[in-house]
């Protein structure tokens, strides 16, 4: 397996800043994979992408794209890479089609070839009909598609997508992901940054989580979520018996073999696993404390969440037994796997940036 992007001990210090924006970052992206770079705002993702795309000068370390050292040979690297930024940077003095043909001209494609490529890509990205209008008329989704088409004009080996689906409608997002998967089939390596964890989990072959300029984790989304302590979650909606209290039930459930931790969440809360498996450092106001529902919550049910080590379903029997013994009524069960978002929060904390 060859390496499409290599970052080794990368350091970037902006002038007049005490902290390094990128602080000894190392990772590799394999050829032909979709690689997600995740991290909170200001974690160093954009700076890293900036260095890899020759727009940010590294303070130290090495970085290469498709085997070309981006620091020593930025011109050579620009032939191998393409960037789709978060904000549109289309050339508004040109039509959409001309945006593509001029881009190819900058990269030395002869006229006939650039016209043919532009026609193909406009068609592929569904912009054929509006290829010769003003770029200003384009919606956000169309501009995004045009920028990806433009990026593909010079057949890059590595495509960098910065927050590609921010602000897109669901149709545009699905379309975008289809195209990105197709690019991977054709052997293009895709490096993307995103805040959308579901998307990262679904799209990326591997993800790297970055914070404070350092790599915190790098693996497949499945492996990362699997690695969280308490691999799965069993969420129970329970109506306590007449003389019972939720806290006592929790304590009893804690004793069930296979239960790592039990906590109470808002009564009648959403069945789905809320972001963040509470109790991680960094949250102002003592993260781990169970947030109780208002006394006498409507319906009388309380939601209890069990973080379990084994398959959640196998614990249903023992849990039901404990509840039955206490006269509590089990009214709802939800089995949840931890999501990439939980991994993210676990690694980077809950503090606002």
């Amino acid at each position, binding site marked *: *397996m*060859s*390496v*499409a992007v*290599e970052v*080794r001990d990368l350091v970037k210090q*902006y002038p007049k800043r005490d902290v390094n924006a990128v602080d000894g970052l190392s990772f*590799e992206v394999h*050829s*032909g994979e979709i690689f997600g770079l995740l991290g909170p705002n200001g974690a160093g993702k954009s*700076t890293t992408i*900036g260095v890899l*795309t*020759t*727009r*940010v*000068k590294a303070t130290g370390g090495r970085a*290469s794209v*498709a*085997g070309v*050292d981006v620091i020593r040979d*930025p*011109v*050579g690297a*620009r*032939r*191998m890479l*393409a*960037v789709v*930024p978060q*904000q*549109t*940077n*289309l*050339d*508004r*003095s*040109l039509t959409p089609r001309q*945006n593509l043909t*001029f*881009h*190819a*001209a*900058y*990269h*030395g*494609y*002869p006229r006939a*070839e650039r016209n043919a490529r532009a026609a193909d890509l406009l068609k592929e990205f569904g912009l054929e009909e509006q290829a010769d209008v003003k770029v200003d008329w384009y919606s956000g989704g169309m501009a995004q598609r045009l920028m990806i088409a*433009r990026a593909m004009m*010079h*057949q890059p*080996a590595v495509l960098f997508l910065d927050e590609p689906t921010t602000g897109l409608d669901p149709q545009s997002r699905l379309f975008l992901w289809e195209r990105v998967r197709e690019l991977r089939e*054709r*052997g*293009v*390596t895709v490096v993307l940054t995103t805040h959308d964890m579901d998307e990262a989990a679904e799209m990326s072959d591997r993800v790297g989580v970055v914070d404070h300029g350092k790599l915190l984790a790098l693996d497949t989304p499945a492996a990362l979520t699997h690695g969280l302590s308490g691999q799965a979650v069993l969420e129970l909606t329970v109506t306590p018996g007449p003389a019972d209290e939720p806290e006592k039930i929790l304590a009893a459930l804690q004793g069930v073999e296979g239960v790592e931790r039990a906590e109470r969440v808002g009564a009648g809360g959403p069945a789905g696993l809320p972001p963040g498996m509470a109790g991680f450092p960094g949250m102002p106001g003592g993260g781990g404390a169970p947030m109780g529902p208002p006394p006498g919550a409507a319906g009388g049910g309380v939601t209890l969440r069990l973080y379990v080590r084994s398959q959640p379903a196998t614990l249903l029997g023992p849990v039901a037994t404990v509840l039955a013994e206490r006269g509590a009524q089990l009214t709802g069960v939800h089995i949840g796997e931890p999501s990439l978002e939980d991994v993210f929060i676990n690694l980077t904390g809950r503090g606002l940036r």
Partner: protein
Amino acid sequence: MTAVAAPAATTAPTTARPSTGRAFLAILWRDLFVTGKEVWVFLAQVALQPLFMLFIFAKVLNAGGFVSDQYKNLLLPGIVALTAFLTALQTVSFPLIMEFSFTREIEDRLLAPLPTYLVAVEKLTLAIVRAILAAVLMFPIGALVLGGAAFHIGGIPLLALSLVLGSWAGAGIGLMLGTLVPPAKISVLFAVILTPLMFTGATQYPWHSLDSMRWFQIVTLANPLTYLSEAVRGATLPSVPHIAPWICLLLLALSGAVFSAIGIRGFMRRAIN
């Protein structure tokens, strides 16, 4: 797994191996193409102000008896110089301020396969081309408004050379300003920089006519436009006393080099963090 691997065999082969020269020409072609596409905007930008200046200063004031017939001959070379200088300056500065901030349009060119400083050099080149087009345009416009334009065949080499060097100086200042001035301060650029440049550049008066106003005469020496105005006047009206052409050309070349160097440094700072 090797640390640095060759590009994957599965990636699409890059059919084009662009040379730096081709990339440079393509970027220049983009700007010329856009100039051609917006030719009426370009004409309005470069021609309207000189047209009014000639009309008011040489025609209207002359009709009222405030300026002599001779003055229009003195004014036209100054207007040619002013037009070339300001066209060059504005061709670079204003688009650059926008392209680096709001529109980010320049990013696609910054990612083209050529050294980044050459993108700045392209801007300077374009500015010189547009400035010379504008300057040449001033002669027919002058003839139209004034009923004749002073011209001297023997002065053409000096005229051409001074216009190239003077436009270069203007473009260099434009590059410097375009990379230094934040977009929010764009109006300050007009008030604090353009206006003094326009009026201290010996465009509306020959430099030697300031002999009796020594302090102002010295102030004008700090403005590269003075040397362009004097050189153009020397080329088209050799009989009017002017600063020696070689001094003008030397100082224009020097200004061009210094301001371009500062401008390119500023450009690099903006283009690469």
